[in-house]
């Protein structure tokens, strides 16, 4: 049987070190399987967060050989096994222990975003009519499994630590999903500009590259939001127009 070595970050609250574990590998294994096997056979108190083991819940995010990935969807045969596979916790969030980080900041950010506000129902029975093409646009964003890998990789958060000023790609996607929700009447443009820091994104597209759900974060969510913000706040003609029209767009 073949074995491989996994170089796993062990430690608490930012401190710690890499430790090497060798374990047997079998057909079809993913990184999360190796971690579980090591946990069961060698070091029971290795901390790892996971739920579905099917790429659906977004719990098992980590950095594998330096790349932000879901451990449960990373096959070992996609990695060079002649050298140790490094597994580290995400860097953008406070470390708890081993591979687990404190992602609670994300949940707090979401609460700041104005909630869904539907227009009056279209039909007397209280229902709405929506065309599939309009649904399609937001359905892409609603595929998000909240793995926060995009947050992990975005330099505004990772390197510049602007967690206060910037909500990060995940929540720009979330805001886009609300703004483009066919039934929604809320308006989040002012917040995007002044509180959510949309201007801080300089469209590097790193977030899009790591999204396990293949959401086109930058092109489909962030850029259209930026355009809306620009149209409203920086376009003098639009401004004039809005002064005479009852409701901004």
């Amino acid at each position, binding site marked *: 049987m073949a074995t491989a070595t996994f170089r796993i970050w062990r430690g608490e609250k930012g401190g710690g070190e890499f430790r090497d574990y060798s374990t047997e590998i079998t057909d079809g294994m993913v990184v999360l399987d190796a971690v579980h096997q090591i946990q069961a056979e060698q070091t029971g108190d290795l901390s790892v967060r996971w739920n579905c083991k099917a790429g659906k819940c977004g719990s098992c995010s980590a950095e594998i050989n330096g790349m932000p990935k879901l451990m449960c969807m990373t096959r070992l045969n996609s990695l060079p096994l002649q050298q140790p596979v490094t597994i580290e916790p995400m860097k953008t969030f406070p470390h708890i222990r081993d591979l687990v980080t404190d992602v609670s900041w994300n949940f707090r950010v979401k609460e700041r975003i104005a909630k869904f506000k539907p227009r009056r129902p279209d039909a007397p029975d209280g229902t709405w009519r929506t065309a599939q093409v309009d649904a399609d646009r937001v359905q892409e964003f*609603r595929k998000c499994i909240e793995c926060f890998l995009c947050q992990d990789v975005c330099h505004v958060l990772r390197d510049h630590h602007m967690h206060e000023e910037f909500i990060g790609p995940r929540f720009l996607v979330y805001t886009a999903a609300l703004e483009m929700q066919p039934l929604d009447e809320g308006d989040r443009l002012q917040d995007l500009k002044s509180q959510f820091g949309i201007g801080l994104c300089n469209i590097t597209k790193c977030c899009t590259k790591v999204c396990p759900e293949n959401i086109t974060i930058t092109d489909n969510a962030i850029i259209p939001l930026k355009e809306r913000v620009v149209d409203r706040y920086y376009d003098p003609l639009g401004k004039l127009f809005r002064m005479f029209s009852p409701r901004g767009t």
Partner: protein
Amino acid sequence: MAEYLTHEHDVLVIGAGGAGLRAAVEASAAGVKVALVSKSLLGKAHTVMAEGGIAAALADVDDRDNWRVHFADTMRGGQYVNSWRMAELHAKEAPARVRELEAWGAVFDRTVDGRILQRNFGGHRYPRLAHVGDRTGLEMIRTLQDHGIHLGLDVFMEHTILILLKDGDRVVGAFGYDRERGRFHLFRAKAVVLATGGVGRAYKITSNSWEYTGDGHSLAYHAGAALTDMEFLQFHPTGMIWPPSVRGLLITEAVRGEGGVLRNKDGRRFMFDDIPPLYANQTADNEEEGWRYVQGDKNARRPPDLLTRDHVARCIRREVREGRGSPHGGVFLDIAWIKEKIPNAAEHIKKKLPSMYHQFKQLADIDITQVPMEVGPTTHYMMGGVRVDPDSQMASVPGLFAAGECAAGLHGANRLGGNSLSDLVVFGKRAGEYAARFAKNNSLGKVNPEQLAVAERGALKPFEREGAEGPYAVQYALQAMMQDLVGIVRQEQEMLQALDHIQELKARTGRVGVSGHREYNNSWHTAIDLNNLLTVSEIITRAALERKESRGAHFREDYPAKDEQFGQLNIVIQKGADGEVQLRREPIPPMPAELKQIIQEMK
């Protein structure tokens, strides 16, 4: 009394899946203070994995549908041991609950005229499942979560409840610990809602996540509440079996709906070999007719590959046992073959089954548009659970409510696909509403410090035995044993053996040790969960021994037929005064004439 971090609320909801979130939203809307506790992070509960859809007679696609048809379908699927009252409420209220999700921001797939699109599923007469591609559960949990966070709920993520607290007869709170720091927490509440999901982790091969250790079932049982229908555990016929790391992962029924067929190693469509007499009239007897059915020909009968989940699972097991299985111990599910029938088959498959295509490609290196999949049954859903009042969802102990997969009644002997997600919102809402009402009429109860001390000591015991056997080996042994001895096909001798093994495993669990400290220590969590797994395993086994017939998901080799007498009763389980499992047979209350008539009409 030792000092614990203490939280006081009107209503405590344990579990943040669809049922728990819906209950919390409702209780909060009633104006009471609500705590919501879950083992994992918000939005990660099992509900997130649901694929196919949520069943509701919206009649958006087929206007012949209405609550009466949905009611009759649910009762037929459950083989008439369901709670007819729950089936009635569920069928009547599901449409409003689905529309409400839309009002809270869910974006379902649409019909051409802009209504909610609904799809066909096994056992539902008309297209009834509102859905979002094959990620309906994600849509639902996210909608409820995003709605809930603006309601002022106190959310305790990554907190695990160890026991329910009682003041006399009444449940007055719960006691647990947080994963991050390993500190103990006391939750005092006037009413408690259990919404902890299922039990699949008692088995080796399962579609369920690590959270499914039967906590709610076990918490309720130890608090003296009655459980019922615990012998009815659904095995989904098509789980992945290869590679080993994905064994058990679900393959949606929609694969067969799109024309996928089951074959043994000789290429034979073995489902044609055993068609139950009850279904003979509605089932195709040749391959050609089966193909026409999946192509939408209303005059064709459905292929036997689409018979009920319990029957298909047993046929697969038979093929494997008799040596006609696939190389890794399953059978073949072939969708690639449709290229003989239609042009551009590969594109068609990718479009209709995107996540299945992706799942096999990424996890098994298999292109399902080219080669067959290997599949086998996987432990999927617990029909049994806390016995509740159908209207209020209150358990047999006052102050305790239950909803979702950990409650029982709606599904009887077999759940129809899509009826779980609707169950969560219909009865989650009711549980929240009645729990809030109960809270308004009651004050906080007294907490017995002794109960907390015992729970704390019990939980910390494994740390005193560092160096002893770890919890994982015991968990694996239990899972393998339940799979072998209390699985899809059961018989008395094997189940008696299982009870012996459970006793041994209990003793082993009492000796399990863990290393390290209390902060985010997975092995400690596993050691604690073992107790719940053992409790539910024993209950499942005893209930299965007691029901000496075969019905729905419960199949006894030694009693292979249905028995009319057992068809009139539920098996009810309660903890006896001696601490042992007690069983009783309880007659199902007589069904009102109107409901009987509906069933007659829909026969």
